[in-house]
C-alpha cells in the first residue's frame, strides 16, 4: 500500500477556476423531471460560508456550485432511481477552513417509507437524521448544510 496524498483546503480563491458553464445543472441535456435544490452553507456561529464549493453526484449526474455572499448554493437535478435504499444525492463540501472535504447525503422529503428503511440513514442517530433530508418549499427542495453547531449536518467518514 502506498500512502495516499494528504488533503489540503480548497482555500478562498477557487472561484475563478473551478466553476464551469452550466455547472449547477446536473440535468444538462437530459430529459426527466427537473428538481431545483437551494440551500445555505453555514458555520458554527450560524454565519453564511461565502467561499464554499458544493458538489452533488449520483450515477451519471454531477453538479457543482460555488456559494455566494449569502452562503447560498443551488442545483438542478433529477430524482435518482435507486435499486438499493432510498433515493439520495452524494454531497461533497469544500471550503476555506476545511482541511479535508466533507461528505454527506441529501435524501428526499417525499420518501418517508424508503427513508425509514434506508440502511445508511439507520446508521445515523435518530435525532440527527433530519439533517440529511431536504425540506419541500413549494416547487423546490431546501437543503442547508451546517458545518458545526446546533443541528450540525451529519457527515460521513471518508
Amino acid at each position, binding site marked *: 500500500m*502506498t500512502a495516499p496524498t494528504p488533503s489540503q483546503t480548497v482555500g478562498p480563491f477557487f472561484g475563478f477556476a473551478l466553476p464551469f458553464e452550466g455547472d449547477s445543472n446536473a440535468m444538462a441535456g437530459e430529459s426527466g423531471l427537473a428538481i431545483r435544490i437551494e440551500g445555505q452553507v453555514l458555520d*458554527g456561529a450560524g454565519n453564511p460560508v461565502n467561499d464554499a464549493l458544493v458538489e452533488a453526484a449520483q450515477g451519471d449526474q454531477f453538479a457543482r456550485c460555488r456559494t455566494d455572499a449569502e452562503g447560498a448554493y443551488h442545483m438542478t437535478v433529477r430524482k435518482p432511481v435507486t435499486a438499493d435504499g432510498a433515493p439520495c444525492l452524494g454531497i461533497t463540501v469544500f471550503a476555506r477552513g476545511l482541511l479535508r472535504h466533507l461528505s454527506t447525503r441529501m435524501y428526499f422529503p417525499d420518501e418517508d417509507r424508503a427513508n425509514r428503511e434506508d440502511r445508511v440513514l439507520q446508521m445515523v442517530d435518530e435525532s440527527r437524521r433530519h439533517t440529511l433530508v431536504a425540506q419541500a418549499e413549494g416547487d423546490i427542495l431546501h437543503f442547508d448544510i451546517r458545518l458545526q453547531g446546533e443541528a450540525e449536518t451529519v457527515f460521513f467518514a471518508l
Partner: protein
Amino acid sequence: MDFEPPYLYPDYRSTELRAPRHEPVRLPDEWFHKTPGPAFGRIPVRAEDADLTRQHPGEPMGERIIITGRVLDSDGHPVRNTLVEVWQANGAGRYLDPVDDHDAPLDPNFTGAGRALTDGAGAYRFVTVKPGAYPWRNHLNAWRPAHVHFSLFGPSLASRLVTQMYFPGDPLIPLDPILGSIPDPRGRELLIARLDLETTIPEWALGYRWDIVLRGRRATPVEG
C-alpha cells in the same frame, strides 16, 4: 501513519467555526470504495487547458515551469483518464479571483487555471509559471509558501482529493499552518514536488515532478 490533517486545527484559524464537532458517521468500509466517483465528464477539458502560459495573446511574467507526475491508486496502479484541475496565483502572488485583494499586480497574460486528463500511464503535465508567495491574515506576518492547488476525482467516492503542491526548498514551508496541519512530517513531504532535470527543458523551463496517490484500490480489474 497520520497523514491526513484534522478538521479542527486552531493554528489555522478558519477551522475553528467550520470543523464539525460530531464524529463523522462511519459507513461500512467498502462503501466509499465501491461507490463510483462523480461523473465529471461534463467539465470541459480542452488541449490548451494544460498550458497556462498560452491562454492569452502574450506570455505571462515569471519563471516558466513544467509540473508533471503520475496519478496512482493505493496499490500503485495508474489512474487513467481522470480529471486533474489546477489553479494558482500568478508570479507576483496574486490570484485572478475577485476575492483576492492582495496589493500585487494582476498579469493580463495569466489566468492561473488549468485542466487535463491523465493519459494511459496515469500521467499529467502542466506548463505554467511558478506562483509567488503571498500574505494572508491568519496571524501577523503570515505568508503562504508558493503552491499550486490540485483537484482530482479518481474512480470512486473515496478517491476525491483536493490538495496543494509545494516547491522544494521554500523557506516558508516550515512556517505554514496549512501544510503544518498534517501531523506526520512524512505526510507533509508527500506534498512537496521535486526538481527534476529529466522533465526540465534546457534553455526553456525548469521541471518539477509530483506523483499523487488517491485513496482506495482500483475500482475495476485491469486486463492482463
